[in-house]
Structures are given as C-alpha cells and as structure tokens.
C-alpha cells in the first residue's frame, strides 16, 4: 500500500496507508497509552486512554481507531490530553479494589503502570466501591470482577484468536460483567490466553494465584516440552528445597513464533517437574526390589553389564530406545553412543510420523519445508488428516489467525468434522483411513477418487478442488501421520508442481523431529543417511556396525527368544505407551533413565533419575524443522541430564569420552549447563563468546560441544549459531538429507494426545488431570431394562 506521511508531536511519521495512528506513533517511539487496544484483535474504542489531539477535529480522538491520513497533524501529549488520561484513571480507580499488595498482577499490572505514568494518586471519591465475590470458572481460570477494567481483551482473544467464544459481557452500565459460557463455569480449551492478556489481575490462573510475586522469580525463556509445535514459554522459577520450583509458565516474552500463544500444556503443565513421585535417587534392583543406590554404584554396574554383553554376545544383543523429549544433543549423543560404544544398530524411538519418507521425498528440493512462521503468512494452506486444534494447538492458532487476519485460503481434508473446518474455504470429509488415497488422487491417480468420495462429496468437487489447489501459489501442505510411505511421496509429487509449495509433516512430541533427524533409527544415521551406505558419520565415528539393527518390535521379539540381553531406555516409556507386554524384557538387563517410575521404569534393573527439558540446555527441533534453544530453568536435586548420564556410562565402559564429545578450546568448564539467559533474551555472554570464537567447551557434559558436531555434520543444521543463541528459531532444511529408508507403516504409532493429555508426562501433571476431570462428562444413569 502507498505510504502516508503525517506529523506527530512535530515529528514526521511515514507509514503505509491504512495504518492505525497508535501503531504509526510506535514507529517513531511515541507510546500512546491503551487498555482496550490490542494488536491483531478487533478495535473497541472503549477505554478512552489513547485520546490524542488531531488538528481540525473539535474533540480528542482515539488513536486506536483512527486510520492515518496524509498531512494529519497530531499532538499526543498536552495538558488537555494528560488530564483526559488522568481522569480516566481516576474514574477506574474509583471502583477498583486497590488490593495490589495481594493481587497476582501486582508488579506486572498495566493499571499500576498507567497510574504511575499519569498520576491519579489522589482519590476524589467518597462513595463505597461496587463489590462482587471472586468466581472460579474452571480449574485454571479465576475471575475477580472488582479488578476488571472491562477492556474486553479476554473476550476477543477467546473468540477471535482461539475461536472458542467462551467469554462474553453480561448486563450493562456499571453492572457489566465478563461472563463464562456455562453460567457459572467455563467449558473451553483452558488455554489461559484470557488470563495472559488481561492487563490487570481480574483473570488469574489456578496454577499460579497467590503463589509468589513476579519479582521473586527468575524468568527463563525456553521451549515447551509437550507437543511438536515448539512454543516458546517463559518459566517463572523460584528456589525451593528440591532445588527449584517452576511456579509459572507464560509468554510475557513474546519473542517466539507463537507470539501471544500458548495452549494449556505450555502454560500450566510444567507441574510434573515437582510431582511428588519424581525420582531423585538412582535405583538398583537388589533381590527383586528396586533399591536406592549411589550414582557411582549405578554407573559402574551399568558400565560393567553393557561391556560384558557387548564383548560376550556382540553389540546386536543390546537395544537402545531414545526419547522424543530429550534434546537434539542428547538424541545425537545416544545415537552415536549406541553405534560407537555399544556397537549396536538396535536403535529406535516412539515414531509418530514418517520422517525418513519425508526426507527422501524432499531430497534435493530447496525451500520445500514450511516453518511455523510460514503457516501464519502463507496465502493458502492444505491440511490433510490430523486434528491440529487438539494435537497441534500452535499450528491451529497459526492457521486460524492467518485466515482471520490475512484471509488465507484453507482447504481441509479430514475423516472427521474437525474444528478447523470453521476457518476452511473448502472442507472435504473422507472415509476414515482414506488420507493416503487423497494423496494419490491429488498426484493424478484418478482411480483413487472412488475411495475418497463419500455421501457429502462428488467426483466433480474433488476434480475442481484439485484444479483449485494446482492453481495456488506458495501453498503450505500440512499432513498428519495418516500419510506415510509411498503416499507421502505422492503428496510431495503433487505439491512440487505448485510454485512455492512447502510441506509440514506433523509429529506429536516436542522433539519427535529431532529424534528422527538425529538418527534414532536402526537403519539410519543422523540426517537420514542409511547405515549401510557411506557418509561423513561413517568416517567421523569410525568403526560402526554396518548391518541394519532391530526396530522396537524386532527388539521385543529378540527379547522373547532371549537374544536381547540388555536394553537401554532413555526418556521413553514403550511399555506404557506402545502396548508392549510388561514381561517382554524380563530376561534382559534393563536400564531406564526417567523422571518417574513409569510402566517401563518399574521393570528396570537400574533406574536413573533424569532431568527433564526444563532442567537442561540444548536444542529442540519442532515438527516443522525449526531449531530452537532450550534453556535450563534450574536443577532438581538428585537428578542428572540424560546427556551427562550417557557420557558417564561410556566412561564406566572404559571409553574415551573425548571421542564421544568433542571438547576443547575456551577457558572455562561447563558453561553450557549453567548459563541461562533471563526471560528469553539473547544470552549476551554466549553470543559474544561465539562471535569471537571463544565459546568454551571444556567439559564433556557440555551439550554445545555436540551442537557443534550436529551443525557440522547433520545436513540442514548449519544455521546461524548467533541467531540461535539470541533466541530466534532457525529453520533447518531437508534438501541435503540422506536418501532415507522405507519403513513398515506399523512402525509408526500416533500419540493420539488431546489438548489435555501429553503422553506419559501428562499423567504427572495435576493441571492437566484436574482439567480432564472437570471436563469429564458424567455418564447418564443407566435405565433398567
């Protein structure tokens, strides 16, 4: 759009036509105060805080609703304007409880800040304040009407942003009140967006209220450990007798791709970290019982056993199961440890998408994957399978808001009437399981049409949809785990004919993509290089077994015939999650690293208490392939990061850990684990050291040393280290990945998590449990027959 030039407080301001005055002012550093204005939400003009003087207009005008025009002359600061703002605050405060000393928002309250700036300190009123009791609307949402300033942000973010529309306004005048959708309670997605956006302490969270004050916490910007979308979340951390306690998750630091967004999991489901069942001591099975032991004892035992099996039965008698929630550095290290130290290719993880097929299909295609940010800007999106509202809440947010704010065209093909159909230009319902046929049809196989037509669609509609899609440009194609193998390559064939098309392959856990990229496969090395071929890994890692190993079900089978003598499980719960018999590994020596005595950990011979992703440093790759920094919020006494445990086991096996973790250079030890920037800001220390080639990696426990190797060797990971350290997400590419290997479709099993569940981790979150209970539909009374 053409530019418009205006004058604000004597400064010339140029901005695109259509810009709101309040935004134009920001570009020259003039802040116009506001309560009800919120970028990307509909305009209200309700709080009257943003009144400014516009020449030729008799009255003061609201900067939040005024569109700039050529030659406009604006005064944003004068006695009249100051007085207007002051009196608005006086009127608000007249009815405000002023319980700042106990209010959760105290210290982070826009009303406090505004009062500080515009000085409405003296009260002119003598009348009694209107009162209403506080209400609890859900396990996570509390509402205190007297503190509410009626800015309607909560109503809009819930409706416009979340498409939930659970909040509204009731009554009128001074009796106006924000109300939940079910009379006295909420039935909603419990995202807490309304709480986060509330400028005051009117909406507070069940997880955080009255726990602490904002200035008593350390704020650490890291990545959510739940689904595969990679939201940045700021953890509020306090010291506690367990070492540390996370008391809050929010996104006051809006620097992530997720901007304002967090779902219930990123916002409240950090509480597993302080669950009372958390393991804080190594356990060794003695006389059939798991018994507390020292770390030394545990590592010695494991080292001895693993070495014994390897030397006696060969590495192929050892199985390794990695995690979808450990860092890239840990997954890479585990993969390397398995091949180099244990001499086994029996490596696997809980697969929820066919990334090897994805990588193979995209090989040689530059810019063919979409970042999470692209999903918000793409002019058109095709979504096949999956239910992002439940399984990929951030992706769903990006899609919804792209449609709402940029009028992106959304095409949804699904066997269910998923919620995102409400944003869709075109929604096609298909028979369950026909997603693969859709891919085939789109790629030109007209015979596949019969399998995808149901009572609500016709062949003509499908033909015209295909034509429409072919006519799109820069289309983002996102698909769920329903599409894999050759169907996936058909879909890529179809999409590759569309100019600028990019793909997103949806996997379920926080670092599912990382686990795949880092080669937690029996037949693939990092970067999808087949084990049987040749690659830099073969040269760098030296002698590694050449034959493909066993996948998870192969390991189970080997165990049943006594061929699997040892099993090393790092941050995974195959028995609990993958329907594996709990006696399957009875005859193997089982080592489990976990936070809890999961279904898998209880059968272990040695269980090691692990730190979770909020307690370590490293990187995660989200399902789109965006690489982001994970920052350590603190340490829980008695636990260790998986990284350290792997290195210690290698050491106990007599392996030279320098070959595992390439350390050297720099002057200080262990900076990686202990550095932690505040509130997601750039870690200036690390950025500067990196820029000067001084980043120290002297300790074998420093994940940065492995990140170096990943960036050097894993195709697509050669992104800007500076940007990464500064807290930005860096999109990786699959263009130079290895050719991959075809896998059996059964090797992939989707997590089937909902908004309120999160694999094994979810079982240990009180927040998720309480929400699930409150949402449980009471079964109807059974009628007698």
């Amino acid at each position, binding site marked *: 759009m053409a530019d418009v030039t205006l004058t604000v407080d004597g400064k010339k301001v140029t901005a695109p036509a259509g810009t709101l005055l309040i935004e134009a002012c920001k570009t020259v550093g003039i802040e116009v105060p506001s309560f009800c204005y919120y970028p990307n939400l509909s305009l*209200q003009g*309700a709080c009257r805080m943003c009144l400014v003087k516009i020449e030729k207009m008799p009255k003061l005008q609201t900067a939040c609703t005024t569109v700039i025009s050529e030659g406009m002359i604006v005064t944003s600061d004068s006695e009249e304007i100051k007085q207007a703002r002051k009196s*608005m605050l006086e*009127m608000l405060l007249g009815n405000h409880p002023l319980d700042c000393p106990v209010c959760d928002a105290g210290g982070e309250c826009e009303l406090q800040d505004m009062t500080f700036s515009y000085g409405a300190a003296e009260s002119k009123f003598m009348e009694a304040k209107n009162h209403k009791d506080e209400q609890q609307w859900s396990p996570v949402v509390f509402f205190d009407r007297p503190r509410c300033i009626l800015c309607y942000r909560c109503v809009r973010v819930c409706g416009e942003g979340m498409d939930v529309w659970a909040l509204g306004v009731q009554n009128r*005048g*001074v009796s106006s009140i924000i109300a939940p959708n079910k009379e006295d309670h909420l039935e909603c997605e419990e995202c807490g967006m309304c709480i986060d956006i509330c400028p005051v302490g009117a909406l507070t969270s069940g997880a955080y209220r009255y726990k602490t004050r904002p200035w008593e916490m350390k704020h650490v910007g890291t990545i959510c450990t739940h689904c595969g979308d990679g939201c940045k979340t700021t953890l509020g951390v306090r010291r506690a007798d367990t070492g540390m306690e996370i008391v809050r998750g929010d996104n006051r630091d809006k620097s992530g791709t997720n901007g304002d967004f967090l779902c219930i999991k990123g916002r409240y489901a950090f509480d597993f970290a302080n669950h009372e069942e958390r393991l804080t001591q190594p356990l060794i099975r003695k006389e059939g019982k798991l018994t507390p032991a020292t770390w030394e004892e545990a590592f010695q035992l494991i080292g001895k056993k693993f070495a014994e099996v390897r030397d006696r039965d060969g590495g192929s008698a050892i199985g390794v199961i990695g995690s979808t929630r450990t860092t890239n550095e840990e997954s890479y290290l585990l993969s390397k440890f398995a091949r180099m130290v244990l001499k086994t290719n029996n490596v696997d993880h809980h697969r929820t998408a066919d990334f090897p097929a994805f990588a193979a299909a995209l090989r040689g295609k530059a810019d063919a994957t979409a970042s999470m940010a692209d999903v918000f800007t793409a002019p058109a999106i095709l979504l096949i399978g999956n239910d992002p509202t439940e399984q990929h809440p951030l992706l769903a947010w990006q899609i919804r808001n792209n449609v709402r704010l940029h009028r992106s065209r959304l095409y949804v093909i699904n066997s269910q009437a998923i919620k995102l159909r409400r944003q869709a230009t075109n929604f096609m319902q298909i028979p369950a399981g026909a997603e693969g046929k859709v891919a085939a049809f789109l790629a030109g196989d007209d015979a596949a049409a019969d399998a995808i037509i149901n009572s609500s669609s016709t062949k003509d509609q499908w033909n015209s949809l295909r034509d429409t899609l072919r006519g799109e440009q820069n289309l983002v194609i996102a698909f769920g785990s329903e599409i894999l193998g050759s169907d996936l390559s058909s879909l890529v064939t179809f999409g590759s004919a569309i100019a600028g098309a990019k793909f997103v392959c949806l996997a379920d856990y926080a670092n599912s993509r990382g686990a795949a990229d880092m080669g937690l496969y029996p037949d693939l090395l990092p970067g999808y290089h087949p084990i049987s071929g040749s690659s830099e890994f073969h040269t760098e890692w030296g002698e590694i077994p050449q034959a493909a190993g066993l996948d998870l079900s192969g390991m189970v089978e080997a165990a049943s015939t006594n061929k699997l003598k040892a099993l090393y499980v790092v941050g995974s719960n195959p028995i609990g999650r993958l329907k594996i018999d709990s006696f399957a590994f009875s005859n193997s020596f089982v080592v489990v690293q976990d936070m809890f005595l999961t279904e898998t950990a209880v059968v272990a011979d040695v269980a090691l208490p692990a730190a979770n992703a909020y307690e370590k440093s490293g990187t995660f790759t989200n399902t789109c392939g965006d690489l982001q920094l994970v920052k350590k919020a603190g340490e829980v006494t008695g636990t260790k990061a998986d990284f350290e445990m792997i290195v210690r086991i290698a050491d106990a096996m007599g392996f030279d850990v320098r070959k595992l973790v390439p350390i050297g250079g720099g002057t200080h030890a262990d900076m990686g684990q202990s550095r932690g920037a505040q509130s997601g800001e750039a870690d200036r220390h690390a950025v500067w050291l990196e820029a000067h080639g001084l980043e120290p990696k002297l300790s074998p426990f420093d994940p940065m040393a492995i990140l170096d190797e990943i960036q050097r060797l894993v195709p697509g990971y050669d992104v800007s280290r500076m940007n990464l350290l500064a807290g930005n997400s860096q999109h990786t590419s699959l263009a130079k990945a290895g050719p991959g290997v075809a896998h059996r479709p059964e090797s992939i099993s989707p997590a089937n998590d909902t908004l309120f569940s999160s694999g094994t981790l979810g079982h240990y979150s009180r927040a998720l449990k309480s929400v699930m209970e409150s949402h449980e539909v009471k079964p109807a009374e059974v009628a007698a027959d």
Partner: protein
Amino acid sequence: MASLVSHPDEVKVVTRRFGLGATNIDRYLELDGYKAVQKALGMDADAIINEVKNSGLRGRGGAGFSTGMKWSFVPKQSAKPKYVLCNGDESEPGTCKDRLIFEHDPHAVIEGVMIGGLAVGARSGYIYIRGEYRYLSIIMQKAIRDAYAKGFLGKNIFGSGRDFDIYWHGGAGAYEVGEESALMESLEGKRGIPRIRPPFPAVVGLWGGPTVINNAETLASVPHIMLGGAEWYAKIGPPKNGGTRLFCLSGNVAKPGVYELPMGYSLKKMIYEVGGGIPNGRSLKAVVPGGSSTPCLTADEIDINMDFDSVAKAGSMLGSGGVVVLDDQQCIVKFALRTMKFYQHESCGWCIPCREGTDWLKKTLIRFHSGGGVKKDIDNMQYLSENMLGRTFCPLGDAAAMPTIAFVKKFRKEFEDHLDGRPCPYEKAGVAEEMEALSH
C-alpha cells in the same frame, strides 16, 4: 393512550390526521394517504433528495442534521443491500411525540420509510419501536400487514415494477439503542452497544450495507413535504429550520401535552400561552428545552426562538423536543439526581468515562441530596462531568455530562444550600417524580 391537546398557534402537518382514524388504511387513503409515495415513484432519486434538502427538514431525533444531506451521502452503487431505518426507540425523558405518531398515523411512517428507500435506492426498511411501546407495535404491525394486503408493500409496489419490504422490530428496554449504531447492533441481534465511527451508517450500516436512519417524526414529515412541496414546508419555519416540530410540553405548566408548532416558535409563548403558564401562582425556575440531555435554561434565558440554531446560540439544544418546565418549588439537586439516575441506569457500560462517571455522579448526588454533601463534592461533580464531556464512545456520556454541568454552574447556590447536613429546602415532591413516571 395519550389524550390530544390543541392550541390555535399550532400548524398541523404531522399531526394533521391525529384523531381522524387514520390507523385504518382506507381512512388513511381518504386523507391523501399513499399519494406522496406514488408521486415519489414518478420522480428520480436525486429529485426526491433535492426536494427534502430544499425543505429545510432537519432530524427530529435530536442532532438536527439536514435529512436531505444525510440521504445524499448514501453511495449510488453498492454491492451490499441498502436499508432505511426508522428510529422509534423514543426514550429520552421528557420526549413523548413519536408514540403519538405511531398511535394516530402509522401509515405516514411507512410512507416516509418508502420514500426514503426510493431516494437512496434501498429495497427494504425496518421500523424499530421502543420495547415499552408494545401497544404501538401492535398498531404498527397491523398497518404494515394492511399495506402488504393492498400491494403497497412487497413486490411490484403500485405496479411500478419496484419492490419494497418493511419489517418492524421491538426494542428490549434500553435507551442506548436509540443511538443509531447501537440500534443497528440490536437489529442484528447483538448487545446494544454503539459502533466505532467512521465508517458512518450511510456507507457501512445495517448488515454492513449503506443505511439511512431517521427519527419517526422526521420520516412522518417526508410525505407531507412530497405533497406540499419543499418551498411550502421550508417557509413554515425560519431559514434552515423548515417545517414544524412536535413539542412535548411537560412539568409545571397548566396545559401539558404535545403541540405541533412552527419551528422557531417563542419559548416564552410556548410556556405562558400554549402551555397556559405556571399554575398555583408559582414562578418559573428553569426549563429543559430539548429532552433531559440538554442543558437547562434559567428563567431569564427563555426569551428565545425554538429552532435548532437559536437554542444552540443560547447554549443549549433543541434536541428531541421535550420541553420540561420547573417552577420555583422544584429542587435542582433532586432534578439533577433524577436525571443522573436515568443515565447511570441506561449507560451501556462500554466505555470508562460514561460507565464509571455516571455511577459516581449518581452516588454522589444521592448522598449530596440527602444531606451528606461536603463542599468539594460540588467541584468534583463539575470536574467529573467536564472530564466525561466529549471523551465518551458515544454521545450518551455527553448527554449525562451536559445537563449536570449546567445545573452546577447555573444553580450553584442551590447546591450550597444542601451543605452542612441541612435538609433539602424543597422537600415537597415535584417534577422529578413526574419525570420518573414519564421515563417508564
């Protein structure tokens, strides 16, 4: 139903058919009914607009904007349907004229809406009737039905090949939906809160289509202009203030009622001749000239003509035509309190200054009137009102602030007389109660 009053100075235009049984469509036809719209059907749109412009007709809803001008703002071409709305939400205390029109001459409103539709190119209109006027909506519904039955509404009206539909809609008891954009929200089934402007209704109105909204009296005047001609109508009043006005004379006058007087009629004559003066040998204290939202005039400020421009010059507004007369026994503080109770109750609550300001003013006035006032209250009330004025989201906030400022400024002494725990010097019941009755 209200009984009719009359006075020889009246010029009966809008009230011409009052009391003549014109709710009956055949009777209406005998009284020149539906001739105006047929004439309009033969004219092109610009000609209709020009006629209304030249008549000097100004909005009777309160703001007094030129009706012809308003119609001319509607774009000729529009992708979305256009609408004409009749604002019959009449809720301003002191105002009770539109109800008489609905009661006695509903077809004139229908005709006005149709002519407006022809002028701006709309094919449908809505008549929005105040919720409490249930009995009037029944009359209106019948009138609409009868007009359809005769083929005056619906497809191919009067064989012209053109279509026009009219719907009625009842309010739910909120003064605020009389504000034009809140009325549109209400018509669309939403909470009655106003919209951000621009865009103005003429461009983006009901359901997003270009929309003309006019007061019921404004629209009921239009057929007479079409038949009598712009020149005739304009000449009834002073320049730029064409025609007549229905003045709702209430309070301490001998003969209260709705009188149709030429624009520019003397306020003094209105009180002392038309209204028969102040009864019981009392004298005049103040007049509210145009509905409760207009600043009051003191007894020595009433030598003015009642047209939009003259009243504005006197520092008040002609507003909605509600003239409320207060005699020397009425307590201004109590009157201010009664007025503020109304606005506090009717504030939609959308914006801070009106929502909070009216509530504080009401609370303060209650305490103040009952003898609990302190000196700084008087300044505070003025401070608060002045800080609301011109800063609210819609004019309701101004409507609450303006009269308060005038009361405090013009009758400060009376406020001071309430200080120090003294009992109200005018304890006898008076106009405030009467207003209370009128506003329900």
